[in-house]
């Protein structure tokens, strides 16, 4: 075998191995086009089915959309009509609002004036209350003084009663002594001279004419009603008995002085007056009289 033949054998072998390797590599790594074709065909069929479904759904949606569009158009027309009506109502409401705002402004002014007036009246009331408190304090003070004066008056009246009793007793003793003296001096034809008092006689205070008239009337009656809340009382005497407005009656219970009643109103059946100088609580049935 020649050398050339040997070389050719080796080259043939190497080239065969090389080419076969290339072919095997290519065939081994080649894609399976049949499988690819089947897969793509299936995908294509599925896509066609989906396209059909999508077209069907599209048609249905178109129909539905047309119906909805029609309904929406109807609603839009109705809403437009409603909007026009509401706008007209809005105009009316705005006019009413303007009128109400004007009225609110008016009432605000009135309320402001009312508040100012109220504040002024409150201030005036406060001042009046202060003055009333002062007057009440003065009234309490005056009532206290009046009670003290009434107590002193009652005490002095009691003293006067005692003195009158003593005076009466002394006059009786004087008369008795005068009669005894006359009896003693009568046999001698003498008469007792008129005694002269050591203490000069003083002018006594005389009551006023009205009071004297009242004392002269000397009326007596009963309390028929008492209203302590308003310090009012009514008596059983009336104008028929000679009672007149301004007359003062003394209310007594037994020998106790209760209060005075200053007559303010007289009718044909009874007389009504204010209760004054209250020493005890007057009751219906207490005696009233012009003189103690």
């Amino acid at each position, binding site marked *: *075998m020649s050398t050339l033949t040997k070389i050719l054998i080796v080259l043939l*072998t190497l080239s065969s191995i090389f080419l076969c390797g290339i072919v095997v590599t290519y*065939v081994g790594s080649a894609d399976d086009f*049949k499988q690819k074709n089947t897969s793509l065909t299936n995908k294509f069929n599925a896509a066609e089915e989906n396209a059909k479904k999508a077209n069907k759904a599209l048609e249905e949606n178109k129909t539905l959309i047309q119906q909805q569009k029609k309904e929406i158009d109807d609603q839009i027309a109705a809403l437009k009509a409603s909007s026009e009506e509401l706008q007209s109502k809005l105009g009316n409401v705005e006019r009413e609002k303007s009128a109400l705002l004007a009225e609110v402004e008016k009432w605000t002014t009135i309320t402001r004036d009312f508040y100012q007036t109220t504040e002024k009246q409150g201030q005036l009331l406060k001042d009046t209350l202060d003055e009333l408190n002062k007057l009440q304090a003065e009234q309490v003070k005056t009532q206290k003084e009046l009670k003290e004066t009434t107590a002193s008056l009652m005490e002095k009246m009691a003293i006067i009663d005692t003195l009158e009793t003593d005076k009466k007793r002394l006059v009786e003793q004087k008369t008795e002594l005068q009669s005894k003296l006359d009896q003693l001096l009568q046999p001698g034809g003498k008469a007792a001279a008129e005694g002269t008092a050591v203490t000069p006689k003083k002018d006594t205070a005389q009551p006023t004419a009205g009071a004297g008239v009242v004392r002269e009337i000397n009326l007596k009656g009963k309390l028929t009603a008492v209203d302590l809340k308003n310090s009012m009382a009514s008596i059983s005497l009336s104008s028929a008995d000679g009672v007149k407005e301004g007359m003062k009656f003394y209310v007594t219970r037994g020998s106790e002085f209760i209060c005075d009643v200053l007559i303010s109103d007289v009718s044909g059946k009874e007389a009504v007056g204010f209760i004054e100088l209250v020493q005890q609580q007057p009751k219906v049935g207490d005696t009233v009289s012009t003189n103690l």
Partner: protein
Amino acid sequence: MSPNGQPKAAAAATSNLYTVILALAFAVVLVTVVFVAYKCYFQYELIFRMP
């Protein structure tokens, strides 16, 4: 018989190495052909034809 009238001697390989190499090349080509045929048959169900 040779042209000279002498009997021709039987051909004998001078070396078995090149025979082995040739056998190897043949085997490689054969295996490649079988592999390609297998792939064609199982992928396209055809052998050496266009589908």
